[in-house]
């Protein structure tokens, strides 16, 4: 009995102390499944931030950050929840993740809220996450797709597109964004000829392409993933000559796109959440030195998600999620000194001295209520087989 009492007293002491402890940060991303090619660069981005903070020795009087990876599979909510439970059992109090919207909602509701764990997702963009009851424990470094749909509809209309067919990947992300594009485009007087789902990782997309082609339209909006069905449908549409003009939202925009299709999709309209500025350039230099590709989709947002968690801990002078969650918005937004990638040590110092910071990071972080990125979008196109940036909206 005495020993038990002693042990629990010691545990209580350890848990409460904000001294030099190891801070456990979970990286809860889709290392296998439909986005498995994005996840390694995202994890590397988050680990880069963790390393930077650890090396500085300035977090909570010299705490080290220990990261641990867990696999969400992106599609299997049960697997994501089980993996997150393991993280919590290992003592993780904050996680970077999840990667896909559906799996993120499941982890948030079944693990993060009951256990009081903080989650910052770099890439879950479903509009459903805006209105979810999260008890203030969930933030995202990516904007909601409700806004992306609006931007896409505006730009399509401005390019003279009067009718479009929409195909979307059959999950929370695809459905949310496709609906948003449709309602915004129709509000502007455009016509959506068909809105049809495709499933990822299927053996063949002939049926989907045939349906889209039969409905027709000035352009085809492919709300999918470039590693997955999105490319399959696009390839089919090109081969059969069904469409020549394409609209690609964020899931389709990365270096793979021009590699795969080259000049055959010249003149496409591409949109993804990204901000121009010093932060991104600096981040890409940092990642080059570390030997991974920082321009890969959501790698910058992952770095920012990890950095925000750690800076908020410093601001709260505690690793307790209940205290940390109150500080995230403060750290992310003005006023205060601007902090770019590679300057996390400076941010930690300022916060320790009780000063305010405005974390800009790699993706020009600016949070709006209820804790998501405000959303700056980059318009791209392909000209002679090369991805070109048209502007920012």
């Amino acid at each position, binding site marked *: 009995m005495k020993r038990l009492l002693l042990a629990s007293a010691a545990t209580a002491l350890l848990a409460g102390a904000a001294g030099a402890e190891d801070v456990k940060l979970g990286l809860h991303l889709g290392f*296998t499944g439909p986005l498995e090619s994005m996840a390694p660069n995202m994890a590397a981005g988050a680990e880069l931030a963790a390393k930077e903070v650890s090396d500085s020795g300035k977090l909570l009087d010299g705490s080290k950050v220990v990261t641990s990876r867990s696999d969400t599979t992106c599609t299997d909510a049960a697997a994501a929840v089980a993996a997150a439970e393991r993280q919590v059992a290992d003592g993780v109090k904050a996680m970077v993740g999840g990667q896909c919207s559906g799996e993120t909602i499941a982890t948030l509701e079944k693990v993060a809220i009951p256990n009081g764990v903080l989650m910052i997702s770099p890439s879950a963009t479903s509009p459903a996450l805006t209105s979810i009851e999260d008890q203030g424990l969930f933030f995202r470094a990516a904007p909601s797709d409700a806004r992306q749909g609006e931007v896409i509809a505006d730009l399509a209309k401005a390019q003279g597109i009067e009718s479009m067919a929409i195909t979307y990947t059959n999950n929370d992300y695809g459905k949310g964004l496709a609906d948003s594009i449709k309602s915004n485009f129709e509000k502007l007087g455009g016509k959506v000829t068909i809105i049809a789902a495709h499933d990822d990782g299927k*053996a063949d997309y002939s049926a989907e392409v045939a*349906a889209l082609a*039969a409905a027709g339209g000035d352009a085809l909006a492919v709300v999918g993933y470039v*590693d997955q069905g999105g490319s399959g449908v696009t390839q089919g549409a090109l081969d*059969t000559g069904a469409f020549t003009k394409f609209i690609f939202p964020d899931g389709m925009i990365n270096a793979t796109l021009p590699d795969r299709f080259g000049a055959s999709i010249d003149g496409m309209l591409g949109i993804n959440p990204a901000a121009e500025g010093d932060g991104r350039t600096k981040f890409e230099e940092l990642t080059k030195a570390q030997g991974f590709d920082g321009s890969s989709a959501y790698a910058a947002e992952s770095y920012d998600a990890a950095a925000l968690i750690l800076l908020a801990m410093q601001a709260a002078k505690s690793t307790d999620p209940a205290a940390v969650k109150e500080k995230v918005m403060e750290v992310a937004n003005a006023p205060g000194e601007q902090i770019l990638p590679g300057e996390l040590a400076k941010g930690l110092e300022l916060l320790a001295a009780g000063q305010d910071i405005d974390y800009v990071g790699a993706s020009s972080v600016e949070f709006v209520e209820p804790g998501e990125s405000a959303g700056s979008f980059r318009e791209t196109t392909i000209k002679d087989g090369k991805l070109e940036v048209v502007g920012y909206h």
Partner: protein
Amino acid sequence: MDILNALVAFLNFVFIPAAAYGAQLALGALGVTLIYGILRFSNFAHGDTMAFGAAITIFATWALQAAGVSIYPLPTALLALPIGIAGTALMVLATDRLVYRYYRQKKSDPIILVMASVGVMFIMNGLTRVLIGVDEIRFDDGARFVIDVRSFREWSGLTEGLALRTTQLITLVVAVLVVGVLFWFLNRTRSGKAMRAYSDNEDLALLSGIDPEKVVRLTWIIAAALATIAGVLYGLDKAFKPFNYFQILLPIFAAAIVGGLGSPIGAIAGGFIVAFSEVAITYPWKKVAEYLGFDTGSAMLQLMSTEYKFAVSFVILIVVLLFRPTGLFRGKAY
């Protein structure tokens, strides 16, 4: 009324894609059905064997490309196919030695072998990813089209275009050749007859002097060849990505079961039935009907939306299992 345009639209969007996909499924289902017929279990590792075979073939293709070998307009991968088949055959023979032989000698229930094959599937799955990575790889270096949309339109003057990819044509031709050779082998050669005898009655075959281990080895080698060819053709036509081979297992099994597990003819028929029903039932017939002179108004004439296309295969599967449990071509049931 415009029969030609209707026909071209049908060929372009339904017939050609479904035929190529059906041939890929048929080759996969042949391998599954062969293992089931002779070794008496459903091999869930077949999809990942296809991925492994394709991966080895890709390595061989890269080596050939580096050496400057090319058979343009055909893809180099066809030349590398024998190396891929040899590598995969060694792999499955090793698996049989390490895993399946033990259960076979113990005369375990088929379900135990099936579960063992699930384990093998996960290991192969990981092995392929370690070898070649998770990313998509395109290794088709041949000419892309036999007929492309633009030149077809210019040549014919029709509004509808027609596309026939080289890989679709190769898939169909190779599938016909492989099926021909396989049937000749099973029906005309001594080894093929031994295999069929073993499949019909193991004990009688043993009594008449057939070496069971030899039959098993031969079966694995043929299954490896079928898996590699199916995997490479599929990879050439779409793109190589290990994850997709895991997913294609489902339609392959649907095809094999619809046709009748253990029946080679059934596997081929099943492959085409699954492919054509997926594409044709979800196709909006609006355009075709309009070319034929029917006024469709705003109706799309689509029986079912595309997200239900997998339901189509399963409905066929259930109907077949209910009314003809051994499949359309009377397969075996163990």
